[in-house]
């Protein structure tokens, strides 16, 4: 049964663009069928009445007031949306929308306005991304393609063309990069330093750069390659260019390379190139360690191990937060927004000799069956969960239903979660989780990691506090959270 909720705020002055963004965010929340955020003039009240979302409270609004009106599928979804809106209205700066950005209709016009431009960040639908990338390259721009759904043969052709022009193509499906201190896409605020990262995975780059930052070190550059650069069809074009670039970069003293296990032929050409480098490398081919490394390289099976390796931490196992031994349910359910974090948790379980299932299984893990009768790690960013919905990094509500299901399952004793902060992500994922958990009966222990830094738009310390107050155990890293889960099982 739909409910109509109105809230009126007196004399609220926000930029039109901020109001528009907030209203879009609210409309995208789970269970919200319609939402409007406009000042309470008679004409606007007519619009809301016409849309069937004007309630008695909204009807009393004055022209100087702001009306938030929404129709939700049930009262709980409506109240959650009102709470989210209130928070956004109270802290519009958290949206980061106060800065004015001039816009154009074409790349040509934009380049005329910013003649010093050297990079195009492309986030159009995948079907159009390659065409836009080619246009951008015509203007001599390096390209970062955030979009996914680009055919692999198009990716390979584009990267070869770019190499001819001596231009980088980061992506497709490149969520994160940090170039000379400038975060692009989803990225965290990390200090500049002497560690370079080359990563096929956005959340992988985020986790490693944040672990490095929280240890007091910094990042020279983080170059995203896109998830398929090390596939045989693409042949590591971007990875090899990135190695060359970091080799030539005086600031970079150590390089971390993060990817899923590559095709054997590609691994060989990449490692051959690494061998010629004068700099030490840490190679993190998530889960795969059975390849011959050159003398200047060490391998790391997990993101945490890669960070430890580069920081010189002596293979210390992650600091585990104390988690009580499980007495009821004996199964672990991981619900991840970050795909690579989901892989890393599986790897930690496999390293401990535990069987694990996933919708995106790493080598050694099994594909998820319909019935969850084992330890399960679910990547909520995978297509089956995001079809028609935003990615869980934008919208943590995507996790609500699977989390409710896990908490209601008596066989689940522990739930593993990741909370990913940074530019581009949701403004308050911990707050969303805390609101979801408030007053909800639960037997299972919840263990989370928080990928981010205190300098992020959502400061990590505050996010951690929110989680702890909500009764969530917070680990120092994603691998640490998985280790804590294993410890709670009493098998480690």
């Amino acid at each position, binding site marked *: 049964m739909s409910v109509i909720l109105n809230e009126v705020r007196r004399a609220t002055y926000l930029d039109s663009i901020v109001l*528009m963004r907030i209203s879009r965010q609210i409309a995208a929340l789970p269970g919200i069928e319609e939402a409007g955020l406009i000042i309470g003039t008679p004409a606007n009240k007519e*619009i809301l009445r016409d849309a069937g979302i004007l309630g008695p409270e909204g009807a009393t609004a004055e022209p100087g007031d702001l009306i938030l009106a929404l129709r939700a599928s049930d009262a709980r979804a409506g109240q959650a949306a009102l709470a989210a809106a209130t928070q956004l209205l109270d802290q519009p700066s958290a949206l980061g929308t106060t800065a004015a950005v001039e816009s154009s209709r074409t790349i040509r016009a934009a380049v005329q306005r910013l003649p010093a431009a050297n990079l195009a960040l492309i986030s159009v639908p995948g079907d159009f991304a390659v065409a836009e990338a080619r246009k951008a390259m015509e203007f001599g721009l390096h390209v970062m393609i955030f979009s996914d759904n680009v055919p692999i043969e198009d990716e390979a052709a584009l990267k070869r063309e770019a190499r001819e022009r001596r231009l980088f193509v980061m992506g497709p499906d490149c969520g994160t990069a940090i170039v000379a201190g400038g975060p692009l896409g989803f990225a965290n605020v990390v200090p500049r330093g002497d560690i370079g990262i080359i990563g096929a995975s956005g959340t992988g780059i985020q986790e490693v750069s944040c672990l490095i930052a929280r240890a007091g070190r910094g990042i020279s550059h983080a170059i995203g390659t896109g998830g398929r650069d090390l596939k045989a069809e693409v042949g590591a074009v971007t990875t090899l260019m990135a190695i060359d670039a970091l080799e030539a970069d005086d600031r970079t003293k150590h390089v971390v390379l993060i990817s899923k296990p590559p095709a054997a032929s590609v691994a060989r050409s990449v490692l051959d190139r690494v061998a010629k480098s004068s700099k030490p490398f840490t190679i993190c081919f998530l889960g795969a360690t059975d390849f011959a490394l050159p003398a200047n390289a060490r391998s790391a099976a997990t993101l945490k191990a890669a960070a430890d390796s580069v920081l010189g931490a002596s293979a210390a196992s992650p600091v585990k937060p104390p988690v009580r031994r499980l007495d009821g349910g004996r199964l672990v359910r991981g619900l991840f927004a970050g795909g690579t974090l989901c892989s890393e948790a599986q790897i930690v379980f496999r390293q401990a000799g535990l069987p694990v299932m996933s919708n995106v299984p790493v080598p050694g893990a099994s594909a998820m069956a319909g019935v969850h009768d084992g330890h399960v790690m679910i990547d909520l960013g995978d297509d089956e969960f995001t079809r028609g919905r935003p990615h869980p990094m934008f919208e943590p509500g995507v996790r609500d239903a699977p989390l409710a299901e896990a908490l209601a399952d008596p066989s689940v004793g522990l739930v593993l979660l990741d909370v990913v902060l940074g530019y581009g992500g949701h403004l308050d994922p911990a707050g969303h989780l805390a609101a979801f958990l408030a007053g909800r009966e639960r037997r299972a222990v919840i263990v989370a990691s928080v990928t981010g830094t205190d300098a992020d738009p959502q400061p990590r310390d505050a996010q951690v506090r929110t989680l702890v107050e909500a009764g969530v155990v917070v680990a120092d890293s994603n691998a640490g959270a998985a280790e804590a889960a294993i410890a709670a099982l009493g098998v480690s």
Partner: protein
Amino acid sequence: MTRDAVVPVLRSGVLAQEFCRSVARANVEAVFERCFYLRGGDEFICVGGADIGDGPLTLIGNLGRLSDFQLQPGWPAAVCERHIVIGKSMRLTLDETESWHSPAWPICLSPAGLTDTCAALARRAAFEAPEEGLARHGVGVPETSGHHPPLARIARPRIAVFERWLSGVLDAGHARLQDSKEAAEALIGLGPGLTPSGDDFLVGALALLDAIGERHAHAALARAITDALPGLTAPLSACLLRAAAAGQVGEALHRAVSSVITGDVDAAAAAAGQIGHSSGWDMMAGVMTALGIAVAARLETPPTAAQALALS
């Protein structure tokens, strides 16, 4: 943080000067990244650095980083002709201020030239205007073409009322106040944003009618708007509408309208894009609508002596 900083006001709009003469006590009403608003009674002024552009209600001063002053909404301001003291942190001095008012309008193109400009501008609006506003869906696009957002759906018949009214006024040379008020009331306070899209539309229409010398229509619309305003829109937007009714518009809109009537579509689109998020293009929706009606009227009827003079 800067405390008790003295900020000389470099330029002051004519209505902002009037504010300083007539208002003694004001409050900080809203603080944005690059400017803030003072409110005294129903009147507002905007204070900001040179990058916000001149306007009738604007004081331009070298503020540096506005956030350094840590101004808060609600802070009191003592106002006199020579200076404005805001809270404990800022003193604006008007001793050496230069007065700013909208410059005279340029000479406008022939009706045929204006027709071409109208068409070119509508094409630009269909791509450049923000999705949420009136310019993209409200005007210049056939009713039947595809999907329109809720605002445009509701605004269209209201814009049609305005068009019929303006057409009638231009034909007859006068208007009944009641008809004029109905045309204005349908749009005042309509739409999202700090200045609702309908208000921006009317500001644009007023500026265009003034610029092309349609004095009867401008006066009738101005009178209707000022009569109808109370209670229909946000106080700040009402203040900007009253200024436009008094023939005073900001620098960017002036530039946009001047470009339209001299046929420089690129400059007009650029100027529109510089005003707010969607306000500039919402104003252009009013400019294009009023221009379309005025051109049609001029093509049908030989210009009157006064119009001929305005058209040169």
